């Protein structure tokens, strides 16, 4: 294999390809286009993948909501149509009985499900916003970004039923002046004064929620609206590696048991499984990635076959040249190596150019989609993909170069020279 590292070999090859410019350019364009499509496609697919990822970033991927509805079957002497009311005790039971559950956060709300929103006011500014009663565990399920200096509700707040609130960006804008630090400031919720402990950053998360939402401790909410042990719904996060659909079923059958509901009554408790939805979207994104991989590789293949084709034609064109070379003492191996190395060299050069162009195109797409509402973030191609593509090209370039090389060698020098 010494010839690969011989400067003379490369001078000869470089001479041959630089002096047949049109042939070289056409050859290079074929592979360049292939690798460009491959990089652009898989980068775009990755961008979409990243987009979905970041869309779900603000909520645990294996989380679900469970709420009470009305029974549809009579059971244990209870008649049908009974309204189910989740209780705080249910959360304890779920946490204790179902080991797959990592976090459970009972929640209450004003401003949804037929309840009026909370009226808030500060000085002479007023407004009505959704108000949530929450446990600290909620941020484990749906992480909230709190601006510097603030915090979310903690256990102390719950224990002492503190009148503290985490407000949204919009609430802050409407209640406080521009340069005013809202932390520590007071405002009224339904005529009760609350102190601001944090401002949360709004992130679209697929569920309900907005940039004006206000969070207060669950225990404070309970006193303020006299909700007792009633719970609006549970936000539940399962451990990462468990089957979320199975967990959902287990939770619901436990609740049915606790609330004396017929085991086959599917209407008593409602649920929404984000994990399941997430898996569907991940599956979709995976499909797109796979598709782009296939299309990309097929395009590279087409490009490499193009190189083989052009080299084959050029071998025919160069029959005489190769005959002369052999009359002058080129061994068949030397002729073969030259053709193969030309093939590989062209493929690699074209590949690198294609990768650079593809990267530029991805950068362009990235900056063009920066500000539009489309799940598309940071389109990149993983380095192993790029290296893989290069390896594929070198291997295919060698294999496809073998055909014209073999042909070049199979022509006897005397026949090659006789050809006019």
């Amino acid at each position: 294999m010494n010839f690969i590292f011989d400067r003379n070999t490369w001078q000869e090859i470089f001479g041959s390809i630089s002096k047949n410019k049109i042939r070289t350019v056409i050859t290079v364009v074929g592979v360049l286009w292939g690798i460009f499509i491959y990089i652009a496609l898989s980068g775009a697919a990755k961008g979409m993948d990243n987009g979905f990822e970041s869309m779900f970033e603000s909520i645990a991927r294996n989380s679900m909501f469970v709420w009470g509805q009305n029974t549809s079957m009579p059971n244990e002497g209870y008649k049908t149509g009974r309204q189910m009311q989740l209780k705080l005790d249910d959360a304890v039971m779920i946490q204790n009985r179902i080991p797959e559950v990592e976090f459970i956060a009972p929640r209450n709300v004003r401003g949804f499900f037929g309840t009026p929103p909370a009226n808030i006011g500060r000085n002479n500014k007023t407004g009505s916003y959704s108000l949530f009663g929450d446990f600290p565990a909620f941020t484990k399920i749906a992480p909230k970004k709190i601006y510097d200096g603030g915090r979310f509700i903690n256990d102390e707040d719950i224990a002492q039923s503190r009148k503290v609130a985490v407000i949204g960006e919009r609430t802050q804008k409407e209640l406080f002046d521009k340069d005013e630090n809202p932390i520590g400031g007071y405002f009224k919720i339904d005529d009760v004064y609350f102190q601001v402990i944090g401002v949360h950053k709004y992130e679209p998360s697929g569920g309900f929620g907005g940039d004006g939402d206000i969070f207060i401790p669950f225990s404070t909410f309970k006193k303020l609206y006299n909700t007792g042990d009633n719970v609006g719904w549970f936000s539940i996060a399962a451990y990462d590696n468990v089957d979320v659909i199975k967990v959902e079923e287990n939770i619901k059958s436990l609740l049915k048991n606790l609330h004396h509901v017929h085991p086959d009554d599917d209407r008593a408790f409602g649920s929404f499984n984000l994990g399941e939805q997430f898996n569907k979207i991940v599956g979709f994104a995976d499909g797109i990635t796979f598709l782009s991989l296939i299309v990309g590789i097929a395009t590279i293949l087409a490009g490499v076959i193009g190189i083989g084709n052009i080299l084959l034609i050029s071998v025919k064109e160069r029959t005489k040249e190769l005959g002369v070379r052999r009359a002058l003492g080129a061994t068949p191996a030397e002729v073969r190596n030259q053709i193969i190395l030309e093939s590989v060299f062209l493929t690699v050069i074209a590949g690198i150019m294609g990768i650079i162009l593809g990267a530029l195109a991805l950068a362009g797409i990235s900056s063009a989609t920066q500000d539009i509402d489309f799940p598309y973030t940071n389109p990149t191609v993983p380095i192993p993909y790029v290296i893989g593509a290069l390896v594929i090209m070198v291997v295919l370039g060698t294999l496809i170069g073998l055909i014209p090389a073999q042909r070049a060698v199979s022509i006897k020098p005397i026949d090659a020279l006789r050809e006019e």
Partner: protein
Amino acid sequence: MIEIKDLHKSYKMGSNSLHVLKGLNFSIAEGELVAIMGSSGSGKSTLLNILGMLDEADSGTYDLDGVPIKNLNETKAAKYRNRFLGFIFQSFNLINYKSAMENVALPLYYQKVPRKEREEKALKYLAQVGLKEWAGHLPNELSGGQKQRVAIARALAAEPKVLMADEPTGALDSKTSYEVMDLIQKINDEGNTILVVTHEEDIAHMCKRIVHLKDGVIVEDKKVEQVRAAQYVK
């Protein structure tokens, strides 16, 4: 230098077999300038191809500088050609995308001579054929005579034991032909062994010995009084 004994060669043409060489015997000593003459179909090109290891004889022996040439695979033949032989073709066979100098340097490339040395040698031989100023030109910028002189320089560059010229003047007008023959004679004067295949009487008589082939056999092998080409060159 060259010794052939009972050389036979036939070609298969469909169902017919064409017996081209019918038992040739001759030897060429070092420093000879031999013309192989014959009309077309006499087998002279076939003989040259066999001598040039571009083709193989069916039977008979061929020794080149004491080395028996037989059962060569392509790789070995290529190495022998490179070491022993220099070719001059009727149609020059220069590589059209290489400059005159690069063409001359090509056999040296296959001898694994380093680039610098290759170029120096190439320039030296170009100077010998009087084309030093044309070193950087491509073949299509040269006249027919110049192309053939480049080809001769290329054949010389490998410093072969025997130069083989296949109708070296076939594509040239008579004035240029004489120039080329003058060059060949001068090279021969320096002691190189040269074989010229031709069908032109005047060209043959510029050699020192004429081997006449007819229908695959040698009909005449005679030494001649060499006509110097220089007298025709003004």
